């Protein structure tokens, strides 16, 4: 098994775990962790493709950095929403957040 396939399997595994987490959990924090894991899996794939297919071009790395920045921003927004929700209702359980529906 080539290193590339191995890395892709690791990425797919991370993505699968993340997807399961995001779908099965009801807590906002847990869901966001799942999403992070999914993105992490995608990043592993990106890095693997860069490393084993086009190590001479750095755009792959740059792309990964951009995605990581977007992840950080997304987390900041997500936690801000979570904190606001917690202050208002004392809980971040998503099953109780139906009242947010317009």
């Amino acid at each position: 098994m080539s290193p590339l396939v191995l890395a892709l399997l690791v990425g797919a595994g991370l993505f699968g775990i993340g997807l399961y987490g995001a779908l099965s959990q009801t807590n906002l924090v847990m869901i966001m962790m799942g999403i992070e894991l999914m993105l992490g899996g995608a990043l592993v794939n990106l890095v693997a493709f860069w490393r084993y297919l086009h190590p001479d071009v750095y755009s792959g790395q740059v792309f990964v950095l951009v995605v990581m920045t977007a992840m950080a921003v997304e987390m900041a927004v997500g936690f801000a929403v979570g904190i606001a929700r917690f202050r208002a209702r004392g809980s971040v359980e998503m099953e109780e957040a139906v009242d947010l529906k317009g």
Partner: protein
Amino acid sequence: MIASLLAIIGPLAALTLIVACRRTPAVFALGGALVVFGGAVGGLIDASAGGHASLAFAGMPDLPLRLQHDSLTAILSLTVATVALLVFVYAVGYMQAEPDKVRFFAEMSFFAAAMQGVVLAGDWILLLACWELIGLASYLLIGFWYERPLVPVAATRAFLTTRGADLGLYVAVFALVSTAGTSEVGQSVAANTGQFAIGMLLLLAAMGKSAQVPFHGWLQDAMLGPTPVSALLHSATLVAAGVILLIRSAPLFSAPMLTAVAAIGGLTILVTGVTALAQPDLKRMLAASTSSQLGFMLIGVGAGSPIAALVHLVAHAAMKAALFLGAGIFQHALDSTVFAELRGVGRAYPRVFILFALAGLALAGVPPLAGFWSKDPIEAATMESPLGAFLFPLALVGLLLTGAYVARALRLLWQGSAQRRPVPGMAWMLVGLAGVSLLATFLGPALVPTAQFVGGRLPTNVSSQLLGFGTAVLGLLAGWSGFTDRLAAPIASPAARGFRVGDGWIDVAVRPALALARAADRLDLSLYDTSVSAGRIGLGLATGPLARADALVERLVLAVGSDGLLLARASRRFDEVDLDGLIGQLVRATQLLGERVRRLQTGFVSRELLLAASGAAVILVLALAAR
């Protein structure tokens, strides 16, 4: 050029200050109007010294936004600025009791800036943008008292009508720019001389903005707005934008197009002139008269003399603004604009009445007031044009009608008696009114040099002068004696409603749609006939020698014939289903779909995440399968 820039920047700065400070809006607005006026005067001085410039700003790629500065734009800019300044002064008094002055003066300043933009624009993109902005300002200002009944309807109607006609301008501009390769007004017009479709589209846009038949209805409804708005937007400037458009694109128009322009103008003169004769409401009568006078300008353009139209535009701005400002004082004095309740108001306020009457007589064309000087060139132009045999009598009838409705209004305001009571803000209002009214009185002799300044010849003709004067006097006498009232009595009620085309959109939109449906029906009938005859021919063939040779062909032809028949019947039935029903079904189906889809939106995050994930999975599978 700098001076002309000031004319746009002034009111914009006033608007910003009003919105930012939210107090003393009148001071800022007046300051802005003064800057506009100063800028316009500076622009005129510059232009009279031979100044001629064009200023380009970065816009879209290859389509810069251009401001143009020459004698024509300087004259128009000064006209708009002068009327705006005096109306702003008047509005300080008129709106004294109004709680929401901030919004009023902000919107008025916004309009003043946008209108200067229309006048000074040197390319189509900027012109189009400002054209839309004045439409928006008109909507906002008609709807200023939006809590009163009928006002929102009137504002929406004005907006939608002009907006609909504006589509003509959009298509025309697209065609002009794409064929000429430049958005500069003069060049693109010169490159498209004689393009019939473009000319008609420009005419359509002008008809909407200038309230020409059949779009004239919105202007009378627009009278529900405050009177300074009626004076500035709906008599002097905004409605003149259509005529300005025609004047600027006049080189494009060839003889058949000019005939169309003149025909629209003539029709409007007659229809709205008679409307004004029978209107029971002072402001609505003035609105009808505005449409009618704009019709005069269209006839001027159609007779091949845009300069005559320009001169009448300038004079009309002063005359009609003065009439509206007078009407506004009467409105404040007796809380009404209906003639029956305004009886004798002229006697109670003699100074206002004299200024009002001066403007009215000027409009009727009595020498030496401005209207005489501005209408005579139009009559002379119609006499000189190849269509003179039709246009000249039409212009004379228009003059007769003008005299009649002006005299009728003066008589109704003078006869009877009314109680005089103090009107708040009278001093401001009188200053504004006196300004425009004196302009309407003394502007006349300045109009001939104006035309020379713009670089055109003003047609003059002694016989048309004499005939015009005689007709105007005849009209005045007929109107004062009440003769025309008796004459107009049988058509009073449709005329009072402004001959509006089928109470709104019925004639404009519904009838054409029905006609289209009928045409489709006819097409189907003919298809049906064709297939029947095809079937018959097939039958004839089949029963002939061929049938004996092959019975299969006969059956085939018969089947084709009857299938065609069935198809034709089915498609006919389909078209006979009511248009409303079809649209209703569409609406119901959309609603049903919407309700079904709504149920998916439960608000449970996990469920929606699951839906999203499974959707992504489906797309993934499809994408893999498609490889």
